[in-house]
């Protein structure tokens, strides 16, 4: 009885839901994604990963309507985002529910000052000026970019530019923020700052985060939900601990965090460190410490 209740509660809370989603780019011979059926719940931090060409970028583009409206092509199956059927609503409407941050920081900022860029979406929506001002300042503060508000994007570092891009999306107050490999061009510290900012947004404001990434060593520990894709299909979908420690994940060739690998190798050698599979170095170090204490 309780299990049935939980399942239907989950259905109510799903903010992104797809059923047998299949998409073929115009002029392509094979679909880029095939029969993708996933559910992302409100407030989750979801990680989507997989080898290059697996379709994760394509899937992302479906979440805010760029597919099918911007890219054309053939989209089959169902996809609902924030209660709206994507095929039936224009991108500018979906943009107020799903914000998207892209890989290249430079090509998302078009204005000559940071605050004008952050205001861009709100200006497009025709909001009154004082509302825009309030939201712009709020978004700048949350991403730690308030001091940069009068600078030109060209003067900023890659990490700063990406945080401005996040602010620009945040200002529209969407329920979901999708980030497509946002740290590809950033150095490790810049990347870490980005992940910390989006983790904060997830925990403090309850914004659902969908992050497409290769660098699992840095991001696995933040996630509630991991989806692994390969060759256009979803291959693994579930809790991080299960997914990353599965044999399948290793075979697909996803960059499993080294801490997890070490744990698996020791397990195969007969050393049981117990408890949940570690996703970060801190978790693994903790386990080793525990195990040694137990032996002593």
């Amino acid at each position, binding site marked *: 009885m309780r299990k049935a209740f939980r399942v239907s509660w989950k259905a109510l809370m799903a903010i992104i839901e797809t059923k047998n989603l299949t998409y073929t780019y115009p002029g392509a011979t094979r679909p880029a994604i095939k029969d993708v059926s996933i559910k992302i719940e409100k407030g989750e931090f979801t990680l989507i990963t997989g080898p290059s060409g697996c379709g994760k970028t394509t899937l992302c583009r479906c979440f805010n309507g760029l597919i099918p409206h911007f890219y054309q092509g053939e989209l089959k199956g169902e996809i609902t985002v924030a209660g709206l059927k994507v095929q039936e609503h224009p991108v500018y409407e979906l943009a107020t529910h799903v914000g998207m941050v892209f890989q290249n920081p430079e090509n998302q900022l078009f204005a000559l000052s940071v605050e004008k860029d952050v205001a861009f979406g709100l200006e497009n929506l025709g909001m009154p000026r004082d509302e825009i001002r309030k939201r712009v300042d709020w978004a700048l503060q949350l991403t730690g970019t308030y001091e940069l508000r009068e600078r030109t994007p060209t003067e900023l570092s890659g990490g700063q530019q990406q945080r401005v891009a996040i602010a620009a999306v945040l200002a529209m107050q969407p329920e979901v923020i999708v980030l497509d490999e946002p740290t590809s061009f950033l150095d490790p510290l810049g990347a870490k700052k980005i992940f910390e900012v989006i983790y904060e947004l997830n925990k403090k404001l309850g914004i659902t985060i969908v992050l497409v990434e*290769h660098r699992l060593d840095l991001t696995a520990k933040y996630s509630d939900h991991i989806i692994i894709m390969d060759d256009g299909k979803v291959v693994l979908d579930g809790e991080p601990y299960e997914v990353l420690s599965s044999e399948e994940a290793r075979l697909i060739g996803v960059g499993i965090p080294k801490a997890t690998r070490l744990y698996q190798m020791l397990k195969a050698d007969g050393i049981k460190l117990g408890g949940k599979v570690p996703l970060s170095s801190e978790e693994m170090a903790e386990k080793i410490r525990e195990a*040694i204490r137990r032996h002593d």
Partner: protein
Amino acid sequence: MIEVEDVHFTYPSGVEALRGVSLTIRNGEFVAIMGENGAGKTTLVKHFNGLLKPTKGRVLVDGVETTKVSVATLARKVGFVFQNPDHQLFCETVEEEIAFALKNFGFSQDVIEKRVEWALNLLGLSQYRKTSPFMLSGGERKRVALASVLAWDPKILILDEPTIGQDYQQKEKLRQFILQMNAQKKTVIIVTHDVEFVAECNPRVVLMRGGKIVADGEARKVLTNPEILMQASLVPPQIAQIFINLSDLEFPKEVIDVYEAREILLKTFRSREQ
């Protein structure tokens, strides 16, 4: 051999990118030049093929000062693969793309054909010989750029941020490729901030910050020193982080390889079981 003698470099815009760098790279070495964005890594390696000339100090490649020869002459010895392959690709076919540099260097037609064949095979691009490079995927375009540089068989190979945007398997292939080149006595220099990749390759690591070298040594020594890494805005590789965390217990500190870590832990737990 590359010798860098107290090199300073300031861009025309006034930015002082190198502030007294001295370094020697011997033939056949495998070196990773690391640091945050803006530390001066790419500026430094651009001196190795003469694209940049020092504002103070000297750079010598095989005993010849880089200010005394043209970039094209140095390029014969020093192959430079840029970060973004799309900054190089412009030909109608992959074949032509690979032949471009060979034509510039004045090779004869049959040598060009042989070398193109060889480069295509080496990087698994034979089926794309007559394809337009723009039709290929990101990873394939990177291989075309690499092939077009290897085609003229430079002694020294420089790769600028080769792991950006690559998935795990692509990085594995790259790592093995680099080791293969190194085994063939080529000097390989990679510019990167990917600590996990460097931990798996275990090269000599030169760490830069603010236009200066702050560390130079074996990967296992440099990547396990948290103070120095923090100065350079880098994070230690996960395995190193685990052992740094456990440094109060009696574990060795300079561990970066997962297999080595497993051996150490196996020994520890097995001995305790007795």
